[in-house]
């Protein structure tokens, strides 16, 4: 399911009931450098809702330059510029992903080793296949690697784990991108504006779907 709906919030919310009163468990990944979330505090139970927050404002970010370059390249491969909207990297979606994996919350801590190990794998695979870093590859070569990862249930056994990384990275890229002004416009969300009336669906649409 797409996590688009407000009701999905409840489902996401319910997870935290189970962890209520339990310490935040950071998954241990032996040998993965930087896989452990550094000690940091979350925004707590009474954050300032009126502020604009940017990645790095609340907790330190993680990506080193190389990781950041790889992440940006992957963001743009997943969501490139087209006639509707710019690419994800130009909107700094990779910085949102950095914010996410650096956050002291359980979901984020779970994603952290997946993303960091995945980026490392991508670099190693690029070097193995093409003798170059992922960010330096042209798009056809980047796609050659990512085609092996695109859908986990159909991935070859050797690519299952990286495919899980790719799926997670794509979801984070989508969330980061479609929440930006440009992404929101691309998607066709036209709300969050005051109006004197609520008119319901366009009459043409109601007729077209036979719902009148």
């Amino acid at each position, binding site marked *: 399911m797409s996590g688009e709906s407000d009701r999905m919030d409840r489902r996401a919310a319910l997870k935290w009931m189970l962890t209520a009163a339990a310490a935040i468990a950071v998954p241990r990944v032996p040998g993965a450098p930087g896989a452990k979330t550094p000690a940091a505090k*979350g925004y707590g139970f009474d954050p300032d809702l009126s502020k604009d927050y940017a990645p790095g404002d609340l907790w330190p970010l993680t990506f080193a330059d190389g990781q950041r370059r790889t992440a940006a390249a992957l963001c743009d491969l997943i969501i490139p510029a087209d006639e509707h909207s710019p690419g994800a990297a130009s909107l700094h979606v990779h910085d949102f992903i950095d914010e996410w994996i650096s956050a002291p919350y359980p979901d984020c801590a779970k994603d952290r080793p997946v993303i960091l190990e995945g980026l490392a794998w991508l670099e190693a695979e690029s070097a193995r296949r093409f003798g170059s870093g992922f960010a330096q590859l042209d798009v056809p070569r980047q796609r050659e690697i990512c085609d092996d990862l695109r859908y986990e249930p159909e991935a070859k056994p050797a690519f299952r784990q990286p495919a899980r990384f790719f799926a997670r990275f794509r979801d984070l890229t989508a969330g980061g991108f479609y929440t930006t002004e440009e992404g929101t416009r691309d998607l066709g969300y036209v709300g969050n504006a005051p109006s004197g009336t609520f008119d319901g669906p366009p009459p043409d649409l109601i007729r077209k779907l036979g719902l009148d």
Partner: protein
Amino acid sequence: MAFVTPATAKSQYDVIVVGSGAAGGQTAYTLAMEGVSVLMIEAGRSYDPRTETPMFQWNRQAPLRGASTPDKPFGFYDASVGGAWTTPDEPYTNASDDPTKQFGWWRPRMLGGRTNHWSRVALRNGPYDFKPHRRSGLGFDWPIGYEDVAPYYDKVEMLVGIHGSNEGLENTPDSPEGILLPPPKPRIGELLVRREARKLGIPVIPIHRAVLTRLLDHRTIPAKLHPGNPRAQRILAQDMQNRAACFWATHCSRGCSIRANYQSTTVHLPPALETGNLDILPNAMAREVILGPDRKAAGIVFVDKTTGREGRALGRTVVLAAGACESVRLLLNSKSAAFPQGLANSSGLVGRYIMDTVGSALGGQIPLLENLPPHNEDGAGGPHVYVPWWLYKEQLAGKLGFPRGYHIEIDSGRQMPKAGTSSHLDFFTKGSYGRAFKEDARRYYGSFVSFDGRGEMIPNEKSFCEIDPAVKDKWGIPVLRFHWEWSEHETRQVAHMQRTFADLLLAMGGKLPRQPETDGGKAISRGGSIIHEVGGAIMGSDPRTSVTNRWGQTWDVKNLFMADAAPFCSNADKNPTLTIMALAWRAADYMIDQMRKGDL
């Protein structure tokens, strides 16, 4: 405005009210409007939706694009302050390590409590809902019936403003003509559900929610609510003009700065404060009820959270409205020689029969809703239609295999993008990325519909709370320990929900990423997760088998009232908030009557 500190509060009030949510707000409103002096004690900080609500904020302005975290389980902009299923410095415990036998306790700490973020779904209980034992032999009948509560439903609906419609359906009460505000038009997905559900014999009707779809009539309503009380009428008429109608933006769960929806802080407290009869003491954690030598309640001992010092609030009558389990905790922690097992607990039933609503969900993707032209579906900041329980006759005839019903809330639409938007699309796209992914994201956006069942739980012996013998909170107050178990009555109901949701989705041509659960035990919500905490001090006609009488007045202590959902004898599928308010108003009227007679 009269916000007070322990130093500035008066030495004596007519009534002390513990809690500021639906129950505390309504109680304080009714009493203050009728000239009774009230001190309201709130464990959290003061909160003003007029200045604090994040109207129009985009998720890109929030940390983590507004995603759910343990600090903010309903997202960054949810109007919950000071606590969630965990509350700092104030733990609770569960007797079992098995998560399915645990209760999650939702406790914000803010003026207005849970009313700031609630769903605004405001359904009346029907006649059957007050007499469930008579109908099925299970649970308990209330000592009151629908006819006792109906006049108060009318009053609350007029005061708060509820949109909806009268449909004349079984056990789904109509409101008197002219009370409900016009329902908003259904969204496209809701229209599709309605068409397909009708073919399956399932009704889809306008939901009732506490949102002003137009302004309240300040010229006629105040006189109906406060006959013979010109001052109350004048204050209410003025306050109604300070509330705006919904401008169809900003989800209600963020709260409402224009006061278009119901929160205790947008509807009850402003006029109550205007009377000058209400003082509010925030940051005061009630520790115990003071028992006088005459075996009457004399007030509340509280801890001032800003200093850690203990204080006393004295009143002629004490009303507990802290949320069912928090009120129960107060009783159990108020031990004395006269009441060694806790105040008002001669029945031994304080803490027994706590209930939540049964929840279960299933969603799908609807190809008919793909690639729709962009249009605004924000609407009234929540669902516009719902399915009331429709199988009363089949259930009564024993054809369903479970004794109580559920209603269905429908979630659909082109909602404001957030962290999870366009994620988990692989099931449909087989893993597209690049330009194809952007096309897929446009195609699938707004094409999802999900159903949330909200069912009645039958009170049982295994679901209760008590004082933990070892654990205390930061203030040294003993905490609650919960015991929880669903029964087959609920798990079978959930299996029926799952089957029904799948039938509806498939009828709409939907694709299901997850198949419906046939084992209801695997798809049932955790106890406490729907945040409809009721019971724990049930009302009745016999002091041996109930804690309060039909007014929420405890049998043992005449001037002590339970105004929240603690006295609920059952937890109908209808969301409890409207009933909490109706019963609180009714109890406050009774208190005023008793005070005038000199009996309180």
